[in-house]
C-alpha cells in the first residue's frame, strides 16, 4: 500500500512546478496552464487526505472528494473566463505577452 506521504509529496512537487510556471512564463496562455497544474496539486492532496483520514478526528466521510469536485468546477469556470479575457486582450492589444499588458501599471 502506498503511504499517504508519497501522495502529499507528489502534490507538493506538482504545486511547485506550477508555481514556477506562473512566475517564469510570459505568455498568458502558459500562465493559465500553470495555474491548472497548481489546482490539480491541491486536488491530489484533498483526495489523498479524504481516502486515508476517513473518519479520523474531525474529518467526516470523504468530504475531501466533494471539495475536490467543487475545485474542479471552479477551475473549469476559471479556464473559460481566463481564455475569454486572453482573447479580448489579444484583440485589443495584439499580444498575449503579459509583460506588455501594462495599462493598469502606474
Amino acid at each position, binding site marked *: 500500500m502506498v503511504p499517504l506521504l508519497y501522495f502529499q509529496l507528489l502534490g507538493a512537487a506538482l504545486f511547485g512546478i506550477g508555481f514556477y510556471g506562473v512566475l517564469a512564463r*510570459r505568455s498568458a496562455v502558459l500562465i493559465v496552464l500553470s495555474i491548472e497544474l497548481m489546482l490539480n496539486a491541491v486536488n491530489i492532496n484533498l483526495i489523498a487526505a479524504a481516502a486515508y483520514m476517513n473518519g479520523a478526528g474531525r474529518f467526516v466521510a470523504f468530504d475531501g472528494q466533494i471539495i475536490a469536485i467543487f475545485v474542479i468546477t471552479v477551475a473549469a469556470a476559471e479556464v473559460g473566463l481566463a481564455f*475569454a479575457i486572453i482573447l*479580448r486582450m489579444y484583440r485589443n492589444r495584439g499580444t*498575449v505577452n503579459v509583460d506588455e499588458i501594462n495599462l493598469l501599471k502606474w
Partner: protein
Amino acid sequence: MQLALFVIVAIFTLGGALGVVATRNVVHAALFLLLSLLGVAGAYLLLLAEFLALVQILIYGGAVTIVVLFAVMLTRSSEYPKITDNPQWPLGLLTATVLSVVLGAAFWLAPETAMQPQAPAFTDLGQSLFTKWALPFEIASLVLLVALIGAIIIARQQNVGPPIGPAAGVSQPEGED
C-alpha cells in the same frame, strides 16, 4: 505492485508538468498538460476515487484541453516562439523549489497516519453532495452560469477587423456596449 503503479503515475504527472513549464511551443504545452492531468487521474484511481478520476478525464481531458487549443488557435500569432521566459526565471525557480521543499517538509514532519485508504460508495458520495453540501452545490452551479455568460460577453466580437498592433491600442477608442 501499488508502489510501481504510483511511480508510473508520478512520472507521468511530474514529467507532463515539467513539459508544460519548459517547452517553447504552446500547443506542445497544452498536450503536456493533458498528459499531466491524465497522470493525476491515475493518482485518483490509486486513491480509490473512481468518480473523481472519471470527472478528471472528462473535464480536463475533454473540455479544458480543447478550450486551450481553441484559445491558442484564435490568438495564433507569430510572437509565440518569441515569448520566452521572464528574465527573472532563476529567481522564480529558486522560489518554487523553496516552496516545494517547505511543503514537502511540512508533510514529512506531520504525524504518521496508520489508516488504510477506504473507498466511499457512489451512493454515499451522492447523498452527501445533495444533503450536507446542497447549498455549495447550488452556488457552484450559479458560479458556472455566471462564468459562462461573462465569458460570452467578454469574448464577443464587437468590432470586426484585424487586431491592432501592440501599444497602438492605448489611444484607440474601444467599442463599448
